[in-house]
């Protein structure tokens, strides 16, 4: 596996899905075990990746490069650098935990776990692909499993949520497709002179045709790509699919959606838009900062207004992704590193929050915040775990969210002072909605309806504790993740700002 570690990480889940398809549907335990095994392999490989990754190099590592479709110079080109490594680790980690968290899925488990594994393959592929066409295929491969996971195993309004997610994302993707073809037709391979999908060639401005150097054209392509990615993030005003999808999706799918899928939007901007169109990145940076600020405040205010716990967490994601955008816009070392660290941290923290909401929903079958009260005495262990994740979300020093948000503010403040000051309000509103929810659910007089709720069980703790440990560790000592990405990101800053 050493040679093709990225391919194994990407395609092992597909093998698992194929195996599951041929297991009789009554053998539910077998199906779940196979799924867990298929997701465990990428996790083990991810650990190996973490150990072997050369932190001092900004070059792509673990590269695999083969011809796929010769006539159109489409290649199977995989490789990772400091930007993709944290995302690959996050994907492998969360996917495995989500399979464990889905153990109580009863309805058609065969389809559920097979689709989940295909989803994992798609996510992994997006973060590893270095050929634009390959990237696009992986990007789209995720849509179909996600549609079914929300649509079949989701809540009451699942049909609406599923197609809305699908339509929004596809609308963004087709714009990206056109931008991709425009690149393909106007970037030449320096060796052969032919058209190419190779991202590394697209990064090099010298390979761009004269047409692609026209400022107006570049602006249009930037915007097409940006809309494609913005829908995924989601950036205001393209965010409306997110609350619907989250509320209806089953717990584990929400975790993946918020933990990994949203990151693909910001990852796409950093991987594709920034290096391919660096001057447009600079041109757009102020707008990006403002959009980030809107996301932070608007998301936070919307979160405060929610009466459904899951919707609250969903809007908190909109808010937290705003910090990522803000950090990216500054193009300073602290801002950029903070942004990518925030991508990782938000993935873990929001996963904890969604899993925690799932715990109470499985027992009470409601997520109505005002319907609870005094749960702290009824479920003390659960109370401590959930509050831990909520404190991480509001940016309590000592937990990982604080580190990345602080880095972002430090990085952006010298560049966009006013925007930073306004955005900082988001921290206060964030604390407000988090603590208010905590108070209404866990404190106050106990609602007698919930006298029989059992506390969190071992399996659920098994999914939550590892994430909690990472959140704590990175809060005290963030270097393990920062070391991974530092060199690559500083190199990227040189490309866009220099």
């Amino acid at each position, binding site marked *: 596996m050493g040679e093709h570690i990225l391919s194994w990480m990407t395609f092992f889940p597909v093998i698992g899905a194929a195996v599951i398809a041929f297991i009789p549907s009554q053998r539910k335990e077998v199906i779940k075990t196979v799924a867990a095994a298929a997701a465990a392999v990428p996790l083990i490989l991810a650990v190996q990746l973490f150990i072997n990754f050369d932190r001092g190099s900004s070059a792509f590592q673990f590269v695999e490069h083969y011809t796929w*479709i010769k006539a159109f110079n489409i290649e199977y080109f995989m490789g990772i650098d400091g930007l993709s490594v944290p995302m690959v680790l996050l994907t492998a980690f969360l996917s495995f935990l989500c399979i464990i968290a889905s153990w109580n899925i009863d309805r058609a488990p065969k389809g559920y776990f097979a689709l989940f594994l295909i989803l994992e393959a798609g996510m992994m592929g997006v973060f590893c692909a270095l050929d634009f066409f390959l990237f696009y295929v992986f990007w789209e*491969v995720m849509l179909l499993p996600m549609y079914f996971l929300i649509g079949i195993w989701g809540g009451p309004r699942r049909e609406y949520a599923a197609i809305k997610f699908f339509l929004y994302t*596809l609308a963004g993707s087709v714009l990206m497709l056109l931008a991709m073809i425009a690149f393909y037709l106007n970037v030449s391979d320096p060796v052969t002179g032919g058209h190419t999908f190779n991202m590394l060639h697209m990064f090099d401005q010298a390979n761009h045709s004269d047409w692609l150097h026209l400022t107006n054209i570049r602006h249009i392509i930037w915007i097409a790509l940006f809309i494609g990615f913005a829908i995924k993030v989601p950036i205001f005003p393209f965010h409306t699919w997110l609350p619907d999808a989250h509320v209806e999706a089953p717990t584990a799918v929400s975790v993946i959606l918020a933990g990994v899928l949203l990151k693909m939007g910001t990852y796409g901007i950093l991987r594709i838009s920034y290096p391919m169109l660096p001057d447009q990145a600079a041109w757009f940076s102020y707008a990006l900062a403002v959009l980030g600020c809107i996301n932070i405040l608007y998301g936070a205010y919307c979160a405060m207004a929610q009466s459904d716990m899951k919707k609250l967490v969903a809007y908190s994601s909109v808010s937290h992704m705003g910090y990522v955008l803000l950090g990216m816009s500054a193009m300073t070392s602290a801002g950029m590193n903070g942004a990518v660290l925030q991508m990782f941290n938000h993935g873990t923290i929001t996963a904890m929050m969604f899993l925690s909401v799932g715990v109470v929903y499985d027992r009470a079958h409601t997520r109505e915040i005002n319907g609870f009260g005094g749960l702290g005495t009824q479920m003390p262990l659960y109370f401590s775990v959930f509050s831990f994740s909520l404190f991480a979300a509001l940016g309590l020093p000592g937990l990982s969210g604080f580190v990345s948000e602080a880095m972002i503010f430090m990085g952006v403040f010298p560049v966009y002072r006013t925007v930073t000051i306004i955005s900082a309000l988001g921290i206060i509103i964030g604390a407000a909605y988090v603590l208010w929810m905590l108070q209404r659910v866990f404190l106050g007089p106990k609602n007698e309806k919930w006298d029989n709720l059992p506390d969190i069980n071992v399996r659920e703790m098994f999914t939550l504790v590892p994430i909690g440990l990472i959140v704590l560790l990175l809060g005290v000592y963030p270097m393990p993740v920062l070391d991974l990405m530092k060199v690559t990101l500083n190199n990227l800053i040189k490309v866009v700002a220099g």
Partner: protein
Amino acid sequence: MELLNVNIPSWSDMGNWLPEAVLCAGFLVALLGDMLVKGRKPAVPFVISVFALVASGSYAVASLTDPGLGAGFSIMGDLVVVDGLAAFFRILFIFAGLATVLFAWTSEEIMGAKRENKGEFYALTLLLTAAMMVMAEARDILMLFLSMEAVGLVSYVMAGYMRTSLRSTEASLKYVIFGAVSSAIMLYGLSLLYGMTGAMDFAGIRAALVAGPVNPFGLLVVTVLVIAGMSYKIAAVPFHFWCPDIYEGAPTPVSAIFSVGPKAAGFALMIRFFYTTLAAGPDAAASVGIIEVINWPLLIAVISAVTMTYGNLVALRQNNVKRMLAFSSIAHVGYLLMGFVLLTPAGLQAILFYLLVYTLMNLGAFFYVVAINNHLKSEELEDYVGLGFRAPWAGAMMVVFLASLTGIPPFAGFIGKFYLFTAVLDKEWFWLAIVAALNSVVGLYYYFKVVKALFLTSPAADADTSPLKLHWLQYAVLAVLAIPTLVFGLYWGPLKDMADIAIATMTVGF
């Protein structure tokens, strides 16, 4: 004869027409067999038609390796040519014909107990296949018209196959009337063209046009009239009105082959006619005159954009799956026409590639409707609720077809769209590419309405949720269509080569 530039046919070149000859012989034998052997199921014509299609197909495949194919074999003088393009379409039509025949065998609509003359269906499919093949081979306006009429006549009969059904007979009558009007329009255009150039064969027409002088207005009228006639055949807006009614009224296996075969044949004819008479050939100076007389790329681009938008928007509102697929097939004609806009080899290759993929996925979607109709006797979307769990493998394959029709990776339909988009963007038709891209999103909504019914919507409490068992032949044919739809989405190199070679070895006569 000399006036018409037609040579006396010689028998020596007929060897290259073996696939067509086998089909015609099969047609006669199947009819005869049907009359002589009576049974509950018309096994004799069925077996004969399968045998004839397989034999014809193997001849057609064998002809691919013939070294002379690149230059083209003229048959009956210059009326018909068997070249790379024709060989490509022969295989496409035989494949579609064979899939239809096999699937029809399991269809209650065709094989139902009360149906009379069941055997005729198989015989007629053979004849239709042969006629479509000739359409792809015609290179003379006389043959062009005759082959189109041959396809039309067989189609009229097939559409009215259920002669006791009001819908089916109405479909047939509509088809006849629309067909006759469009043929007349096109024939008028062709007669004007003959008057202008004095030639019947495409090469001669081109030579006369290049030699000039050309009356621009006359040529415009001719182009518009001919495009109108061909638009009828491929069901492009505004000549699409017949299409949904006939697809809905005809038995579903017939609609399946209608949605693929005659459309592909129409494209074959369009490609050959316009590419050989009007395209800018290698001798740009000589051909510039023809192109510049009229801005017909814009004309095609507008037809393309309107067709795909209309098809998609109307499909949104359909609740009958068959009718929805009819409008979807109109939308796909719009996509296909994108490749036609500039008459560049890249665009034409994209059309051929898309036609191959479209054949797989569209036949698959229609066949699923056939299979379900056997059990439910309905094509209404509301009756499809919960079917995905009653027949999971068939449902999964239907999802493959629908996702591919939408154009999402990793299915072959996406690759087809990708080539069309690339061809259009390469020549900087940005607005057309954007219209088409947005149309894909619209398509998603109605294709996934079906997916939603199959898998997402919970069936009513009293609904039948027992597992559905389909005929093994149905699973087999669906798999033969679904697996390539997926595989060609992941590795389509060979398919693309086939399309490229077909265009490269088309004999153009300049």
